C-alpha cells in the first residue's frame, strides 16, 4: 500500500494541495468560487512535531480536514504515512489520532470511561488491550478519579485532557492536534503542552495547528505559516525569527492607553508595526522598530496625559513578530 518512495522518511507529504468552495445561486449555478487552499506543499518527517500557524480563514482547518480524510481536495495530492488521502481513508484513519479544539467531539451525557470504550471499539482496539490501555490513559491524563462521572460535569481543561486520551486510545502513529489549547486557562494549557511533549517522546509524529505563537515556538521543530491559502514561510522557529532580526520590540504595559494612542504610535517614523491588547485594565502594547530603545522618547511624548506606563522593556523579536510580518506582507 505504500505509495511513495519517501514514505519511510515522511509521515505527511502534501503536493500542490488546492481546495475550492463553491457558493451556488438560486438556480443551482455556481455564483462564487473561493480558494481556501491555493496549491500548498509541505512534508512532515516521521517523529517530527510540526506546526501550522496562520490567521482565521487562512486554510489551517481545511488542510487538517483534508489530511484527516474528512474533506476531499479539489486538486493536488496528500499522503499520510505513505497512504493516499483520497483512496486509503480507512487505513489512514486507523493510524492517526485527532484532537479537535473547543467543546466538540465528546459525548457529554456519558462518562469519560464510556467515551473511551466507545471510541476504542470504533477504532477496532482489541478488547483485552482496551481493558488495560483505557485505565492507563485515564491515569496519564489525570482523570482516573473521575472516570465514571458524566463529561458534562468536567471543566474545559478536563475535557481537553480527555480529548488527548481519546486520540491516543488506538495507539496512533500520527497525531493531528487542531488548536488543542484554545480556551484553556494557563495551567490547563501547560498540562496539554506537557502531554504533547510526552507524545513526541514516544516517537509519534505530531501536526499541531495553533493561534498561540509562543506555543508553536516552544513546541514545534518546524513551522509553516499559512496565509490566504498559501504557505508563506516554512522553517524552524529560530530561522523564522531571523526574518525580523532587523527590528527590536518595545513592550509597554500601560494604564489608560487608548486606540488613539496606538494610532499615534503607528504614525511615528521608523515604526514597523504596533500590536496592542487594550481590553484589560492593564494594556500591553508591542512596538516593532529598527530603532529599538532610541524610539522611546517619541513613544513617551505621544502618550496621553491621563495614561501611565507601568513597565517598558526592549525585547528580541519573537515568532509572533515574524508571523505578523509574514501574514501582513
Amino acid at each position, binding site marked *: 500500500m505504500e505509495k511513495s518512495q519517501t514514505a519511510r522518511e515522511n509521515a505527511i507529504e502534501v503536493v500542490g494541495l488546492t481546495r475550492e*468552495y463553491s457558493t451556488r445561486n438560486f438556480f443551482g449555478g455556481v455564483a462564487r468560487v473561493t480558494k481556501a487552499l491555493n496549491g500548498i506543499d509541505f512534508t512532515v518527517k516521521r517523529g517530527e512535531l510540526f506546526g501550522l500557524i496562520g490567521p482565521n480563514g487562512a486554510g489551517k482547518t481545511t488542510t487538517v480536514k483534508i489530511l484527516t480524510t474528512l474533506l476531499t481536495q479539489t486538486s493536488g495530492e496528500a499522503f499520510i504515512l505513505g497512504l493516499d488521502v483520497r483512496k486509503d481513508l480507512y487505513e489512514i484513519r486507523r493510524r492517526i489520532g485527532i484532537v479537535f479544539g473547543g467543546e466538540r467531539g465528546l459525548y457529554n451525557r456519558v462518562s469519560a470511561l464510556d467515551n473511551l470504550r466507545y*471510541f476504542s471499539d470504533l477504532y477496532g482496539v482489541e478488547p483485552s488491550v482496551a481493558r488495560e490501555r483505557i485505565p492507563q490513559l485515564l491515569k496519564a491524563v489525570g482523570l482516573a478519579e473521575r472516570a465514571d462521572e458524566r463529561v458534562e460535569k468536567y471543566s474545559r481543561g478536563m475535557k481537553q485532557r480527555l480529548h488527548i486520551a481519546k486520540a491516543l486510545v488506538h495507539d496512533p502513529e500520527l497525531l493531528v492536534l487542531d488548536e488543542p489549547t484554545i480556551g484553556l486557562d494557563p495551567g490547563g494549557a501547560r498540562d496539554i503542552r506537557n502531554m504533547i511533549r510526552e507524545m513526541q517522546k514516544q516517537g509519534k509524529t505530531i501536526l499541531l495547528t495553533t493561534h498561540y505563537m509562543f506555543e508553536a515556538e516552544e513546541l514545534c521543530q518546524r513551522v509553516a505559516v499559512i496565509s490566504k491559502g498559501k504557505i508563506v514561510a516554512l522553517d524552524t522557529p529560530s530561522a523564522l525569527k531571523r526574518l525580523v532580526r532587523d527590528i527590536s520590540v518595545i513592550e509597554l504595559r500601560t494604564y489608560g492607553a487608548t486606540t488613539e494612542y496606538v494610532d499615534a504610535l503607528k504614525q511615528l517614523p521608523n515604526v514597523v508595526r504596533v500590536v496592542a491588547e487594550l481590553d484589560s485594565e492593564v494594556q500591553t502594547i508591542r512596538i516593532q522598530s529598527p530603532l529599538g530603545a532610541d524610539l522611546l522618547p517619541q513613544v513617551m511624548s505621544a502618550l496621553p496625559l491621563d495614561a501611565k506606563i507601568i513597565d517598558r522593556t526592549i525585547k528580541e523579536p519573537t515568532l509572533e513578530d515574524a508571523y505578523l510580518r509574514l501574514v501582513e506582507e
Partner: protein
Amino acid sequence: MGDLTDLTPGRRIDGYTARRAQVLKACIVLTAKLFFADPQWIVPSIIAPFIFTLVAFFLFGGEASTGSFLLYLVLGSGLMGMWGTTIYGSSNSIGFDRWNGTMESTLAAPIPLSWIALGRVLFNTFEGVINALFILVIGLAWFQVGFGVINPGLFFLASLSTFLSLSAFGLLMCTVILLSRKGGFITNSMEIPVYIATGTMFPVSILPMVALPFAFLLAPTWGIEAIRLSALPGYTGLATDYWVDLAVLAVETLAYLGMAFVLFKRVEAYAKRNGTLEEY
C-alpha cells in the same frame, strides 16, 4: 498525572465480521446509555404508548367490540408506537452527532458510517419494540383481552422480521438526515402518513387505490399483515398467505438495506466533497 509514555501498545482486530460486530455492539451500548441518560426517555417509552392506547380505546373500544377486534386494536397501537419511536429515533441517530458536535469524531472513525448508523438504529428499533410491548400490556389490561395469539411461533417470527424491516427503513431515513440539515423535517412528517399506509389502525384494503402502491412498498405493511395473520383467528386482511407476506417483507427489507448502504456511501462522498456533513 501519570505517564503517557508507559502505555500498553495498541493492537487491532482485523477480521471483517469481528470489526463490524465490535462497532455494532459499541453503537448499541452508547445509544442505550445516551437514551437513558436523558430523562425525556419517559415520554416516548411510557407517556406516548399510554396516549396511543387511550386514543385507540376511545375510537374503537365499545361494548360491541369482540375480543379479536380488541386484540387487533392493541396490536395496531403497539405497532404505531414501535413505528413512531423507530422513525424518530433512527432518523435522528446520526443527526444527533450534528448538534452534539461529535460528527467529525464519528466521521473520522475507520469504519463506514453506515455501520455506525446501523448500530444506533438497531437500538432505536429495539426501544420501539419495548414501546410496543408496553402498549400491548396497557391495552390488554385496559380492554381486559386475553393475549391468545393463534400461533405464537409464527407471531414471534413475524414480529422479529418486522423489527428488522423497521431497522432497515430507519437506516434509509438516516441518509435523508445526512443529506440535509432539514432532513429531520422530512422524516418526522412521514410518521402519520406511514401509520395510515401500513394499516396499523385499520386495514390497508380500505385505502384508496392510489395509495396502495405506496402502502405495498413499505415493508412494515407486510410485517403487520403477517403479525395479524399469526395472531388473530379468522383474519383475512389483504387475503395473502402468511409466508407470502413474510417473503415480500424480506425482499423489501433487503432492498432497503441495499439502498441504505449505497446511499450512505454516496452521501458520505458527497458531503466530503462539499464539506457540509458536520455543519449544524
